[in-house]
């Protein structure tokens, strides 16, 4: 797959793709989890406030 | 070393709005009172009413979340070491090492205080609490009442101007009761200021000058200690709202 030529590392796109995909998944996943946890906490508070009013 | 002129004549306790929370619960809410130097105060209230918390705050074992206090003229928050130097707390926790003997436990405290820590100096103190015959037995062989006596001796060792006693009668036998009465009288006679939390209304009222009732962390009644038993003491419902 990799052709050794002038000492240049050729190919290796599969590593590049893997690095970008994993970075994207982890960063996006963490962002989603923070937003989701924040929203869930806000919703829980609203429910609790409603229950106290009734 | 404060050179302020007011320090020597300042009251034993000036508490203003002391509040303390444990997690979701306020254990102490806005407690203010004063105790003149050389007087004694009895703290009454049900279990969990905040007596221990108040004593622990005043001894600077825990910080108040709100409020301020001066102990014998020293600021509770900014002069912690001075406050600790002039007050002694008999706490629910015995502050003892189980593996060490009674004498060794006192020796450890005496060395931190810079007092003589030899046997001859400490045995009289153990005799005061009637433990001198058990001086060389490890604390883990002691009964709950004996631990209380040893903890009491440790408190007295500090020779503090202000003594805070949390349930001194707890776990003691009748001779132990009389022992505490006697020690209390000695403290009073030597001009110390004493705060005592206890459920024994009649006993406390006979010993103390002032009384103070806590209910759910709030100050519910304040007045002369001798009026406490008549007011039903532990039952806050029978107390007049807002008191004092």
């Amino acid at each position: 797959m990799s052709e050794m030529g002038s000492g240049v590392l050729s190919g290796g796109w599969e590593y590049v793709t893997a690095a970008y995909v994993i970075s994207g998944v982890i960063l996006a996943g963490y962002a989603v989890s923070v937003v989701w946890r924040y929203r869930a906490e806000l919703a829980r508070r609203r429910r609790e406030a409603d229950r106290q009013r009734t | 070393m404060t050179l302020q002129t007011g320090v020597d004549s300042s009251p034993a306790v000036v508490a203003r709005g002391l509040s303390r929370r444990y997690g979701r619960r306020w254990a102490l809410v806005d407690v203010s009172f004063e105790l003149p130097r050389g007087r004694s105060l009895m703290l009454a209230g049900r279990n969990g009413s905040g007596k221990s918390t108040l004593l622990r705050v005043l001894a600077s074992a825990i910080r108040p979340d709100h409020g301020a206090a001066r102990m014998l003229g020293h600021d509770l928050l900014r002069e912690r070491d001075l406050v600790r130097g002039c007050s002694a707390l008999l706490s629910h926790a015995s502050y003892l090492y189980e593996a060490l003997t009674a004498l060794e436990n006192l020796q450890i405290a005496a060395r931190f205080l810079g007092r003589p820590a030899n046997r001859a100096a400490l045995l009289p103190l153990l005799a005061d609490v009637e433990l001198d015959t058990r001086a060389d037995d490890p604390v883990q062989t002691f009964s709950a009442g004996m631990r209380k006596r040893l903890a009491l001796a440790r408190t007295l060792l500090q020779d503090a101007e202000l003594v805070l006693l949390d349930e001194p009668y707890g776990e003691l036998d009748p001779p132990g009761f009389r022992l505490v009465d006697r020690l209390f009288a000695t403290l009073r006679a030597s001009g110390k200021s004493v705060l005592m939390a206890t459920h024994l209304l009649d006993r406390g009222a006979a010993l103390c000058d002032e009384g103070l009732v806590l209910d759910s962390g709030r100050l519910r009644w304040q007045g002369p200690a001798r009026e406490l038993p008549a007011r039903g003491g532990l039952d806050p419902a029978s107390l007049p709202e807002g008191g004092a």
Partner: protein
Amino acid sequence: MPYAFLALGGVLLLAGSYIGLFVAPEERYMGDVYRIMYVHVPTAWNALLAFTTAFVCALAFLWKHDFRWDARHEAAVEGGVVLSGLLCIQGAIWAKPTWGVYWDWDPRLTTTAVMFFAFIGILALRRFVDDPVKRASWSAVSTIIAYVDVPIVYFSVRWWNSLHQMQSSPETVSAPFIIPLRTNAFGVLFLLIGLITLRARLALLRLENELAPPLPASRTALSAEGSR
């Protein structure tokens, strides 16, 4: 506001990665593999920045006794743990084609791994302490010690592994390399700012839930002057 930072960070990251992957030229020695650098280096900078933020917040909490600093501290530690974990994975992926192994005990990468475990320990400590006050002071103390430890770890690993020292960094001076690098660096930075802000708000909400509500304004004059 934090959502704007998140969106901006996301857009910058997409743009920077596109340039880095498809526009920027090949590197002279490393060919295409070096393109990992465009996410790796920004992650590294921002991981360090997150831990530095955590360190500053920890100092501020011990100084001020204000729980808002504790919330920010928790958020920064968590962000730093995520970024340093990602950094280790990226480093391993990059090490394979360049050095032939996934883990090469490179001092920077190894230090990152040590930091990752140290700060995961702090997150665990926060889980296992129920009293909010103790939790805040203890984790602040741990963060300060762990942060001060980082340079010592780095130097010890560097000396330890001094036999094959090959800090081969691709040439990054010329403009075509710099643009995607900077774009992604700011992308991760804005993402991090947005996430820490949001996470700190979440931490504060949870804290309010754990602590009793503040007392109504006190009647006594002196009580305004509290310790915390």
